[in-house]
């Protein structure tokens, strides 16, 4: 009897779990997995996104590698992602160290630095667009860098870093707070101060946070989209066309649905590969604590 009751209890509980899980699973599949597979299938077609299409095998993939516009978008995206990831991490780490030291208004400042995280990327993009188009030129007397094919990417990086620092700083703050105070005290007695303290004690001990932040920020930066839409629309002269933006723009509005699906598949594989490589490399630097 006891066993029976247990079994019945168990199946009741299972049913509850299922009732929670299944709707989520269905929604996830409907909006994520199915489009992923459909997109993958479309990448072998010449679909324009509407009407009839033909299956053309690997033609899209072969064309991608000789398409200058696609190659440029990859170069632009990786350049922005690498610079913005490094910038975000360096600035966030400095901010986090400042915010974890004994300063006045610590809580208020922590709150303030988190504000960019709760603003929508599009809103931020439009605000900065206004800033770079009207305010900065008015002060410096030069033309807007958003109009420069050479420097527009820097404006994008600035906005990306400004917004990404919020969450990255929080993760570094958590990492810093996990280092025991007496380890710092022992280091102070052993003679580690200033740069030595950071190099030998702080940095190695927050390496897990560094890995997390590097991978997360890099992934986000590679997928840069909102800032492009709101600030440059890929211009001037396609100089700030990110991969996501190109896929969206040409895929949905430019009649290259099948072709950009192939681009998306390649992009997906690339991001996965970069994340895995990063994790592997950084994990090897992480100390087993």
């Amino acid at each position: 009897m006891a066993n029976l009751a247990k079994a019945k209890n168990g199946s009741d509980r299972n049913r509850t779990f299922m009732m929670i899980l299944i709707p989520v699973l269905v929604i996830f599949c409907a909006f994520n997995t199915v489009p992923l597979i459909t997109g993958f299938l479309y990448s072998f077609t010449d679909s324009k996104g509407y009407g009839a299409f033909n299956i053309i095998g690997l033609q899209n993939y072969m064309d991608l590698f000789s398409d200058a516009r696609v190659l440029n978008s990859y170069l632009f995206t990786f350049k922005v992602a690498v610079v913005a990831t490094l910038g975000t991490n360096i600035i966030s780490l400095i901010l986090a160290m400042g915010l974890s030291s004994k300063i006045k208004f610590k809580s208020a400042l922590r709150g303030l630095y988190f504000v960019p995280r709760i603003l929508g990327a599009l809103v931020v993009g439009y605000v900065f667009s206004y800033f770079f188009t009207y305010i900065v030129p008015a002060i410096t007397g030069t033309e807007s860098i958003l109009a420069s094919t050479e420097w527009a990417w820097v404006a994008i990086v600035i906005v990306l870093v400004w917004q990404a620092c919020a969450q990255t700083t929080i993760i570094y703050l958590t990492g810093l707070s996990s280092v025991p105070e007496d380890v710092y005290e022992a280091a102070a007695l052993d003679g580690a101060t200033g740069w030595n303290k950071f190099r030998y004690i702080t940095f190695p001990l927050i390496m897990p946070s560094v890995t997390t932040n590097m991978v997360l920020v890099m992934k986000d930066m590679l997928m840069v989209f909102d800032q492009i839409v709101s600030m440059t629309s890929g211009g001037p002269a396609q100089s700030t066309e990110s991969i996501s933006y190109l896929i969206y723009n040409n895929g949905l509005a430019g009649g290259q649905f099948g072709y950009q699906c192939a681009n998306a598949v390649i992009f997906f594989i690339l991001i996965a590969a970069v994340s895995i490589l990063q994790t592997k490399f950084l994990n090897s630097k992480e100390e087993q604590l």
Partner: protein
Amino acid sequence: MAGLSLEHIGKKYPNGYEGVKDFNLEIADKEFIIFVGPSGCGKSTTLRMIAGLEDITSGTLKIDGKVVNDVEPKDRDIAMVFQNYALYPHMTVYDNMAFPMKLRKAPKDQIDKAVREAARILDLEKLLDRKPSALSGGQRQRVAMGRAIVRAPKVYLMDEPLSNLDAKLRVQMRAEISKLHDRLGATIIYVTHDQTEAMTLGTRIVVMKDGVMQQVDTPSKLYAEPCNLFVAGFIGSPQMNFIDATVGEKGGKTTLSFGKNTITVPEAKAAALKPYQGKVVVAGIRPEDVVESNEYAEGRRLSEPIDAAVTVYELLGSEAMVYADVDGGSVSSHVSAANPARSGSRIEVAFDVDKLHVFDKQTELAIVH
């Protein structure tokens, strides 16, 4: 190695709380000084001020004759062993011990020699390649010691270094530290709340309470002549018996009365009690100086017998502890394991009057030992 001098050292926090008040102490070279007291008494704060981890808000601290109040911790030439060891979790045992020398840019071969020598002394040779996470508590403790030894500093500071170890290991490490002190000929300042550690390790003990130094003396002197009620109660385990008693006179001799009991105070102690005639004082007597009728009486000058009702009997092995109610108070006493006293039985005890302590009830200071 070096001596230390603490002159009127005080620690006042921004909120006005005084952690340490007017602390004065001269520590000679090669001394093993113990700071002991209950938690919150300011012993660790004093140690951390010596280390430079806390600011000294008043007074002067000298190491080797040089004022170091504003000298950086790293430049004070001291090493500290922390309660939680504070090992660098990302470094091997070897690197943990080599770290202070590495930062001082010592030559590699010199570092290697010093680390291996320390490892040999502390029996860590087989563990040099391990990370702290792969070590037991006792091993980590030894690495922390090693990190201190390697630098051969002027002064060693130890902040409750054994309190995270289990009882058996603690006894073992206590002996190790004692040996280490002899071997290194080092000046050691050691903080503990464990009075057994204090008694066994120290050449001198500083007893603290509420930020105030109570007494500084050798372990034996501290035990035999505690300066006040707090020290008398804190040093010694089980603690000293205290009984409120009235000073009186009987047949020309000074007496102490509690309940219907009256004991005669020996001549040597009587003079000091003269001003207290008719007043209530606190009589203190250690459990080993409360003897049961015929036991342990030889060579002692005993008081009048006191009738006692045993409430608790604890067999410790070779001996037993008896807790008993007497008229006017209660006492604990060491009895032999063979003693038939048990809970509920009545016994007769007597005090070794030569070992009697008397304290002023108001000021709590010792009147006579």
